[in-house]
Each structure stands twice: as C-alpha cells, then as structure tokens.
C-alpha cells in the first residue's frame, strides 16, 4: 500500500510530517509537492483505478483505520477540478521531471527560442508584466560578455506563495526555464536570488541545483529586504552591497549584474517557459485575454474559506476566483475589500469584483495584478489601520535613494497615525492625496510609485472609515 503526503512547508505547518510518521511500516509513504489546496492539508492521497483519491485534513490520530474509509476522488474536488493547470500541472504528483523542453530547445537556434517566447507574448509574472521575449532579445543583442540569467525568487509581496511552491515542489521547472533562457541569450551562468524567509525552499532548491548539470546556477540568499525584489536592488544585493535601486536606463538587459547584460525574470516567468517550448507559442497565445496571455497562478489568502493556489487562464473575474474557487467568506465574516498584487496593490470594494484577471483590465480600474496575490479583508478591518500598516511597511522597506519614497512614506505614515488617533482633519486627506501624487510621479521605482495606491484607493472607496475619526 502506498500513500502520498505533501512535504510542502504549508502542509508541514499543519502537521503533514506528523501524519506521515503515524503510518505503520508496511505502508509506503511517498512525499510529494502540494496541490495547493491548503485548506485541505494535510491531504493524504492513494492510487485508485480511477486516479488519485484523498483524505482531507488528516490528523495523526486519524491514521489508524484511515485507509478503510472512502476517499474523495481528487477529480471531484471542485477547487482543483475547475482549474487549468500547466505551470502547476504536476503539483501533488510524484512525477520525475523529464526536461523535455530543454531537450527540444537544444535542437533550436537561439533566435528560434527568442521568437517563440516573443510570439507567446509571455509577460513577466513578478509584477511589472513586461514582455519576457523583448527582455531576452535585448540581452541577446547586447554586446557585453559574459551574460547572466537571474531568477528573482525574492517573493516579498505579502499574500503570495507561488514561487515558494515551485521551488519546493518542482525546482527543476525553474532551473530548466533558466537554462533555456541561457541558450537563447548566450548566457554562461545563472543566479537564483531567494529570500531568507523560505528555509524549506532553499533546501529543496540547493538539492536540485546540485543535481542539475545542464547550466551553471548559483544560489544567493537574501537577508530580509523587500526592496531586493526590485530588479536593480536585487542585482546590487547579489553583488553584496546595500539593496539600493539603480537609475534606469541602462536597463539590466544591457548593463545588469556586474555591469554585464542580464536577463532577470520572476520564478513563475521562468517556470512558464518549458510549456511554451514543448507546446508552442501558439498554444500559450491561445489562452487568456487580448493582452494577457496564458495562465496565471493566483494565490488566495486572508479571509477566504478555501485559501490556496488557483491557476486559471487570464480573463476569469475576481469574483469567480474568490467565490467559485475560494468559496467566499469564512463563516461569520462579511466581505469588505480585496487587495490584489501585494502590499502595493490597490484596495477594491465589492463593486470592482467584476474586474477580469488581466494586467490591462486591472490598470484600467487603477489597480495592479502584480504577482497574483489576492488578500480578502472582512468588515472588522479598519481601513485607516490597514493604510497605516501599509505605509509603515513602505517606510521600513524603502531603500532611501529617492526623496519621494524615503520621506513621503514616513510623512504619510505620520498623517495616517494622526487620523487613527482621532487628530485628523480634511486637510490631512487632501495632503495624503497630494503626497501620493508626488510619490507616484517622482519615485525612482515601483515601491515608492505604487505605495500610495492602496492608501488612495482606501480613501476613495472607504472614505467613511477615514472621516469617522475627525
């Protein structure tokens, strides 16, 4: 008898290791990645003639006699069955990685790979949504030598965990994507910059890199600085310096790591490459909306019943994701707002739930899709307290290079603290708007440029919270 139990750190946090240890010796326990239905973890699966079936929320005490009970077919779990999985197609399985895409890419000319990625219209999944093919072509055409491939695994946006799941669950998919990028642009070495908050992912990634001989890859460990998710700050950090944002241009694609041409993409962007190579650019371009192609691994969090990873083609609405997949609010909680795109993402009220998951549809309503984090807030959340928290975050994480971000975030935090303490006035809201404009237009990078967005949208949609305290 064989059972499959995830060793993903989220599953482990709710007892997957203790459950695995509770099985008797005659049961073979195979550790796998997690399917990302974290509300069901620990999810213990078995093989049946009709595919995998599982037992949900298993505790060690449930293990004796568990296998005599009737399991739920995985295909009958709506949260999973309704998804369109490519990047996370193997999540939860124990499938050896076949490197089919890398083998195919070896038979292609570098320009063919570049054309394929461009034709697929793959936009970066880290937040900026810049076309990956354009970045790659720029590096391929750049004169400097050597060239580098850098994976941004500094998944700092609170409410996101898809990079972590890839690194823990299928690290070879990331490494393969990087190796293909290396072939396309003629790079000699790759780096993965991983945040220190992910010790389990670091271990899995180290083990994978040690086995991976197709492309030289070095792992660099971050040290707890959100700004190092910004691509130029990340490069400074790899070089061992303070993570200070660089002026652009020159762009990293031309002058990046140690001044050399560098492709820097998010983990999910690289992890999407293998499917584009094996299935073809047309397949990728056939999924999604007019301007956002392919699938997006969304990450549900906060006050939502079924929190977990939801990979769907672009175009699904926020409402579908939160209610059809997420199951809506937990018992006793009432929806108030949703924040998409991490701590710099706008805060939306109920009426904007009809917004489709699409980079441009979000931009049109004044938001960002970012790295795909979706955090739901209930009616107990005071928007002034939330805005103050987010500005405190920006003030703590600003690299300090440009004045709008360095000074603006601290001033905004102080104003919000005054409002929170009941010392606010109408002038304060006007001042926050003006300060927000300055930060948006005058900041060097997206941290300062986007930080006012959640505050300004909170004032716009939940003005009552702010005025109540006057």
């Amino acid at each position, binding site marked *: 008898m064989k059972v499959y139990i995830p060793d993903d750190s989220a599953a482990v946090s709710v007892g997957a290791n203790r459950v695995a240890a509770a099985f008797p010796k005659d049961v073979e326990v195979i550790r796998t990645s997690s399917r990302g239905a974290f509300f069901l973890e620990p999810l213990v699966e078995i093989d049946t003639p009709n595919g995998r079936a599982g037992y949900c929320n298993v505790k060690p005490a449930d293990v004796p006699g568990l296998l005599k009970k009737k399991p739920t077919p995985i295909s009958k779990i709506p949260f999973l069955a309704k998804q369109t999985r490519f990047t996370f197609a193997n999540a939860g399985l124990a499938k050896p990685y076949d490197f089919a895409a890398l083998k195919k890419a070896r038979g292609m000319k570098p320009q063919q790979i570049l054309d394929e990625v461009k034709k697929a219209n793959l936009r970066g999944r880290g937040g900026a949504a810049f076309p990956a093919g354009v970045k790659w072509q720029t590096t391929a055409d750049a004169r400097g030598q050597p060239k580098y491939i850098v994976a941004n695994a500094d998944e700092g946006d*609170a409410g996101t965990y898809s990079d972590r799941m890839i690194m823990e669950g299928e690290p070879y998919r990331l490494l393969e994507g990087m190796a293909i990028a290396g072939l396309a642009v003629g790079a000699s070495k790759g780096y993965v910059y991983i945040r220190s908050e992910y010790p389990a992912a670091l271990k899995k990634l180290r083990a994978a890199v040690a086995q991976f001989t197709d492309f030289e890859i070095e792992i660099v460990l971050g*040290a707890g600085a959100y700004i190092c998710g910004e691509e130029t700050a990340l490069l400074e950090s790899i070089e061992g310096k303070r993570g200070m944002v660089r002026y652009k241009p020159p762009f990293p694609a031309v002058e990046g790591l140690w001044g050399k041409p560098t492709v820097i993409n998010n983990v999910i962007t690289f992890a999407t490459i293998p499917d584009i190579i094996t299935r073809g650019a047309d397949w990728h371009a056939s999924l999604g909306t007019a301007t956002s192609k392919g699938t997006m691994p969304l990450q549900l969090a906060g006050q939502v019943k079924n929190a977990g990873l939801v990979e769907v083609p672009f175009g699904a609405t926020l409402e579908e994701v939160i209610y059809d997949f997420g199951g809506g609010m937990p018992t006793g909680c009432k929806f108030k707002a949703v924040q998409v795109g991490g701590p710099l993402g706008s805060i939306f009220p109920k009426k904007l739930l009809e917004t489709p998951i699409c980079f441009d549809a979000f931009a049109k309503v004044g938001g960002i899709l970012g790295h795909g984090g979706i955090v739901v807030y209930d009616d107990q959340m005071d928007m002034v307290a939330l805005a103050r928290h987010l500005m405190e975050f920006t003030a703590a994480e600003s690299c300090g290079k440009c004045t709008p971000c360095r000074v603006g975030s601290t001033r905004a935090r102080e104003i919000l603290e005054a409002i929170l303490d009941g010392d606010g006035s109408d002038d304060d809201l006007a001042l926050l708007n003006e300060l927000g404009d300055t930060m948006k237009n005058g900041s060097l990078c997206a941290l300062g440029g986007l930080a006012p967005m959640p505050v300004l949208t909170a004032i716009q949609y939940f003005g009552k919270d702010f005025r109540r305290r006057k």
Partner: protein
Amino acid sequence: MLEKCVASPPNILATLQAVQAAFGYVPLDTVPAIAAKLGVTDSDVRGVLSFYHDLRTEKPGKHVIRFCLGDSCRATHCENSLAAIEKKLGCELGETSPDGKFTLEKVYCLGNCALSPNMMIGEEIYPRLTPKSATAALEKHK
C-alpha cells in the same frame, strides 16, 4: 573564524551572513577586521549591516520568533496573537524577553498566507495562530 567567513570573491553581504551564521549576530567590534579583510571601508560594512533586516548587531535570545505582519496575517487579525505573545514574553516586537529565551522579530510574509496568521520559531512555522495556540507554541521551546 573570520578567515572561514570571508566570501570569495569579496562580498560584504555574504561575509556578514556567514559571520552571523557562526555567532548568531555580527558583533560591531568585528567590523574593522571584516572591512580590512575585504579591502573596503568600515562604513561600507556598516552600511550593508544596517540595511538588511536579517542582520543583527546584538546577541539574540535562544530562540528567534519571526512574527508575520504581512497583509494576509493582518487580514486574519494577527494583532490579537501578537499581543498575547508580547504579554507572555514581557517584551515587544524587536526586543528579547528578559529571561533571554526569545527574540521577537517582525517579518513581512512567510509565504504561508493560505493558513494565516503565521509565525516562525527557528525554521518551524506555526499557522492559524490564535492567542492560545501562539502562547502554547512558546511552551514547546525551552
């Protein structure tokens, strides 16, 4: 010890991370030796040391708690568990408990957002915190 910690090629951050891995923190009096070894100035080293939240210049408690203040943990009202922990430890975020057992640090996101609110003690994540489960987790660390 320093000999072993100095990264090659010289890299200030990697060196400081190695020193902290060896001592638990980066004693300020090691800065001149690190700078000399790397061929940079003291202020270069201090600049990197003060920039990164992970790097400490004071000896931490026996266990380090990284309490998550990320958006999802805020959304699930982590402040209640934080208050319970602060009361139990007799120290606030950024401080070490008077008995030297725990250092309580904040962290912005542990990537366990589907099971918020979270904290990490050592490398172990404690999910779905309540004031009760949060203080109970402390009991497991002597």
